[in-house]
């Protein structure tokens, strides 16, 4: 019985393979009978001759695709800011970054100003509470932000898991940030989180600044130094939020 089963199977398998070979050689195309009855001549002509404006349509779709991708990114950033507002109960004002300052690239120009409640010294944040800078100049409908990586930035910070170690953060040539005045006796490690201290009335404590990257100290010194790498790319900032009141 098994042999009979195998025989029938093989005979019909060979038949199917024979059909496939004939079909691929375009001698025998059973599908053409079905296709010709199912597809009208018009639809075949449409498939064979694509529309003339296909290149233009492609360009339009490409532009639309880029626009939608930008909207997706924007939507994600706004959602994160909304979460921050809900969690921390800050008053946040969302702003678009218009451009960089022509003289100093580490100063951003925002599209809102004193008319929207912006004042000097307020903290500028992104995402889930990452501080990127401080307002340094305000006009009626625009304002300027000095990024933390600017060399004139000075900010009191806390380091470590329990935020007990104090230090002073300053910018470093627009690339990373520099931590100084960390007491020698205090232990800090690479990748320790750096957050804002509660020394400034305009800047809430606990906003994330960056991560410790490299620690420098010598026996004779009173304080340690460290470099801090930011958690976000400052060159791609497009939407930020200003904490107008705590």
């Amino acid at each position, binding site marked *: 019985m098994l042999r009979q089963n195998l025989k029938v*199977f093989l005979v019909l398998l060979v038949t*199917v393979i024979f059909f496939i070979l004939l079909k691929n050689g375009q001698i025998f195309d059973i599908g053409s009978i079905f296709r010709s009855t199912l597809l009208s001549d018009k639809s075949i002509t449409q498939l064979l001759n694509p529309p003339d404006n296909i290149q233009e349509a492609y360009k339009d779709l490409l532009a639309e695709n880029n626009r939608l991708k930008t909207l997706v990114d924007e939507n994600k950033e706004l959602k994160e800011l909304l979460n921050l507002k809900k969690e921390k109960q800050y008053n946040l004002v969302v702003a678009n970054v218009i451009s960089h300052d022509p003289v100093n690239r580490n100063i951003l120009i925002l599209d809102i100003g004193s008319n929207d409640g912006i004042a000097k010294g307020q903290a500028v944040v992104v995402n889930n509470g990452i501080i990127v800078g401080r307002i340094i100049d305000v006009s009626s409908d625009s304002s300027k932000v000095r990024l933390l990586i600017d060399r004139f930035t000075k900010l009191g910070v806390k380091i470590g898991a329990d935020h007990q170690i104090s230090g002073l953060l300053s910018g470093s040539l627009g690339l990373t940030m520099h931590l100084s005045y960390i007491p020698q006796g205090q232990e800090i490690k690479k990748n320790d989180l750096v957050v804002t201290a509660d020394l400034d009335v305009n800047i809430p404590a606990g906003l994330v600044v960056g991560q410790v990257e490299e620690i420098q100290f010598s026996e004779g010194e009173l304080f340690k130094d460290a470099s801090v790498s930011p958690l976000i790319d400052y060159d791609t900032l497009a939407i930020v939020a200003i904490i107008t009141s705590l």
Partner: protein
Amino acid sequence: MRYIVIILMYLLATYSFLTLGFINNGWQYVQPFLIASLLVYFNVENDWLYYSFAVICGLTADALSGVFGLHAIIYLTIIFILKNLQLTLLTSKNILTIVLLTLLSGIIFWLMFWGVNFISGWDLYKFNDLPWRQLLRGMGVNSFIVILVHLLYFNFYLRRHGQ
């Protein structure tokens, strides 16, 4: 009479294949040709008849799909495996055997398609985002129809004709 039933089954399967092939609705996972081939296999004794029926069903499906011969080979292999199992392990002809073999045929069908897709990259069915829930539902519907029609045939037709 039996041959008329087989022809009707084939026509019904063709009609179902053409009308149930809705995209994104999960209906493509119900395989009327597989159902028809299994029904003929379970209810016909002649080897040549049910194997030929499976080939014809497969070729009809292939005529409307992208890769000619694939369905036919898969149906043939399914029948071959089921027949071998019935000759060796599952020799009984009770309803549990029918249920097991029908479910097994569904698994073999999708496994073979997945295997062919994995080897050659043909996207006859989109295996990257395959909706498993719909596939399982389809297998459930397939099995249900096979069992129902088989029971109806067995209890009404065969008993009435005293076979």
